[in-house]
């Protein structure tokens, strides 16, 4: 199940090591995730659900959904999709809730062996600007704040910066200034290189657990780094926390083998593991189309791409590539059910009418072992919400989103939000929002800072966003951002006082 040859990617793997799975010895690569190693070894069922003991595999592969929890070295509820494999690990299928670990047990992934010296203060002190998320938005924010001389710390829970860019093998569109014709994986590398010339410190392998407003201008972040709790104070914060994969409700949608599109990308493009032999792609937006193409590149059969909408939502150029490969794109189709003993063995689809109701007699069963859901994303608002930033419901931006003004500042002064976290779009707009937030945060931190340069950089970012959101494919973002402006405007009108 490992991908041996790939037209674009080469996989750098750790040494091969043995570990234990439910008493059996199997091998994997050191440093890859436990879930990836198990998947490569053909293991799909990672746990049994608490109430009905249903088999569960992973779903998001980025440590957000809790579908992959297993007992590792005696510790229950370990997120195996983000926990690196070590030699000799004892991995067990978790049945139900799991038993509390014995006193003195070490939490897997909280390695102390390569941690900083024990005398490292748990207090990281303070920094002018803290940025959560080292994806396209977060890195851009650090670079642009840095160009204005603002010092920052960029925090990311992954060991490798770049966010979702590290799994995007396709070339970007847009203008050259926005990395057109460059592959996502290379953009991440390029941004990290640019960051090196900035007064920015990158803190990878560090999870932001909480953001505390604490009622003062300075904000406090609580961080988990190599098993230790740290606190970091910042005068301004940019939240570039990205998004989480949406699920779709259908019969047996929790069967192992039903994966989010991001998880499928992570498996094949980061881990070099094929998600299955044949895939049904649900969703014909850009992500569904691009991931379908990537699956074919990785040697996986794509049985069909379906979408409930009457038209393909993604770019025509992506759709044309899929059609040329002979993969049917079935619009006005939905998935009714998945079937299989303890993993997906088939999927039943049907045509839908104008009221989105399945049409009787149009059911068709496809023999696939993987169902990939590319049905949208939801912004990750938790940190903003916890700090007390106001939220609003804007369907065009992905549902519940953090209220923000034109400069991406939230209702909590000094807290900015950028990228998918501010509303679902794409990596190109995320980079521009990151630039805008970085510039706006710098301007807020240093009143009167180089006004001409600030104005120019801000205008460039705003103009770039306007360009990228032009045309029919930018409609949702345009409408969503317009609604946001109205919301913030009405709020400013209703309550006097300084607002974002």
């Amino acid at each position: 199940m490992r991908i041996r040859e790939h037209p674009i990617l080469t996989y750098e793997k750790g040494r091969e090591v043995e570990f234990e799975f439910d008493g059996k010895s199997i091998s994997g690569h050191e440093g890859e995730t436990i879930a990836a190693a198990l998947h490569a070894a053909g293991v799909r069922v990672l746990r049994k659900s608490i109430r009905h003991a249903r088999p569960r595999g992973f779903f998001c592969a980025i440590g957000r959904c809790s579908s992959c929890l297993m007992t590792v070295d005696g510790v229950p509820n370990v997120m195996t999709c983000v926990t690196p494999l070590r030699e000799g690990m004892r991995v067990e299928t978790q049945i139900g809730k799991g038993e509390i670990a014995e006193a003195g047990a070490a939490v897997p992934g909280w390695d102390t062996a390569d941690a900083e010296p024990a005398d490292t203060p748990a207090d990281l002190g303070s920094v002018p600007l803290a940025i959560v998320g080292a994806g396209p938005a977060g890195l851009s924010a650090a670079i642009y704040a840095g160009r204005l001389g603002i010092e920052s710390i960029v925090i990311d829970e992954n060991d490798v910066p770049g966010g979702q860019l590290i799994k995007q093998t396709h070339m970007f569109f847009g203008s050259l200034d926005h990395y057109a014709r460059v592959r996502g994986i290379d953009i991440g590398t390029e941004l990290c290189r640019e960051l090196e010339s900035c007064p920015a410190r990158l803190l990878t392998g560090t999870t932001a657990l909480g953001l505390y407003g604490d009622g003062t201008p300075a904000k406090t972040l609580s961080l988990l780094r190599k098993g230790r709790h740290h606190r970091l104070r910042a005068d301004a914060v940019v939240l570039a926390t990205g998004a989480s994969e949406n699920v779709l409700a259908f019969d047996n949608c929790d069967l192992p083998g039903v994966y989010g599109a991001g998880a499928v990308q992570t498996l094949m493009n980061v881990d070099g593991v094929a998600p299955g032999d044949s895939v049904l792609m649900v969703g014909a937006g850009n992500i569904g189309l691009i991931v379908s193409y990537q699956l074919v590149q990785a040697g996986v059969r794509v049985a069909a791409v379906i979408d409930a909408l009457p038209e393909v939502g993604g770019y025509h150029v992506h759709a044309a590539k899929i059609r040329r490969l002979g993969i049917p794109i079935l619009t006005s189709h939905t998935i009714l059910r998945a079937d299989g003993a303890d993993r997906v063995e088939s999927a039943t689809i049907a045509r839908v009418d104008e009221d989105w109701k399945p049409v009787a007699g149009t059911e068709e069963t496809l023999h696939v072992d993987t169902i990939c859901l590319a049905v949208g994303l939801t912004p990750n608002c938790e940190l903003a919400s916890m700090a007390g930033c106001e939220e609003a419901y804007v369907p065009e931006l992905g549902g519940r989103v953090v209220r923000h003004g034109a400069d991406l500042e939230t209702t909590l002064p000094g807290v900015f939000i950028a990228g998918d976290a501010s509303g679902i779009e794409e990596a190109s707009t995320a980079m521009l929002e990151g630039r805008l937030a970085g510039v706006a945060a710098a301007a807020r931190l240093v009143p009167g800072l180089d006004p001409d340069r600030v104005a120019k950089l801000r205008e460039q970012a705003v103009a770039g966003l306007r360009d990228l959101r032009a045309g029919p494919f930018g409609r949702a973002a345009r409408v969503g951002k317009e609604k946001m402006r109205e919301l913030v405007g009405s709020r400013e009108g209703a309550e006097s006082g300084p607002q974002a």
Partner: protein
Amino acid sequence: MKTSADCVIIGGGVIGTAIAYYLAKRGLTDCVILESSYLASGATGRCGGGIRQQWSTEANTKLAIESVRAFAGLEEELGRDIEFLQGGYLVLAYTDEDVEQFEKNVALQRGLGLAVEKLTPGEINERVVPELNTEGVRMATYCADDASANPFLTTQAYADAARRLGVTIELFTPVTRVLTDRGRISGVETSRGTIEAPVVVNAAGSHSVLLARSAGVEIPVTPYRREILVTEPLERFFHPMIISFSFGIYFRQVKHGAVIGGFGSPDEPAGFNETSSLDFLTTMSWKLERLMPRLATVKIVRQWAGLYDMTPDAQPILGELDELPGFFQASGFSGHGFMIAPKVAMLLAKTIVGEEPDLDIDRLNARRFAGGSITQDRSVV
């Protein structure tokens, strides 16, 4: 929305919904509950869910014993699982003062028929919680009949039962003003219009003081933030609610398997602040790990804050205000409203319809503060 009703209850927490249910059972069904957000969105849904009978005054202990009795029959009466569990309460003593007070408490509680035991540290580990670190613990009192329940399910159960009897519940409908006419209550003004009513029950927790003020009356209720956290779920490994007044902690394992607990900071300023703090997270983690070392590997999944509606004697304000006929108070529960809700609501409902309550709640009327002498219960965590 209705424009008039026999009774309006402000607050969709456990107190408001329970009062509505017991009123409706007594035939007062033309009743509207007004909730500014969703059911149990205030102090009810933020509390730890403990139900304790071990108190230091006779009146409170009697009320608590009756409350556990009421809780025990609630699932059958309301037709819904509320995760009621008699897992006991283990109260830890660390100081001379604790020990002295606990001896007095136990004598009083036993006199009222409560089965409460005194345990040595060794007995705590042998009989109740093997995992507990008893270092520094002088003794503990343990009442195996003390209990816990799920505050959300309890509120929902009361709300559903009340609705079945004809009560109307309006969610996301904040009351903007309590209305009076010629010295008595006349109704309420809400974000969605006015409701006329001869009886208004103020069950709005910390916000009750603002509502009372809108009608021109003052009640001595002060909000204080209290913080709390919850861990990932695990198979059950201990049963009782474990608390200590001097160490400052309470925690239990809920039916779902998560450990939920908190403590009150003595330095907390008064106010409506409901945000979470990092200091709480850090200190609470330390306290939990100290008392139960095996919790060291357990992941905290969430922290939040709620408001205690404190009164000068840490006891609720119940009943009609002398200065404003028709305006009934049911607030100021000072952090232990959930555990006495069924009995208190039943008593207040009786008072409202003019029945004789079977337990004295007149002692809890707001007029007690006019007299100057109040009794403080020492068992508030």
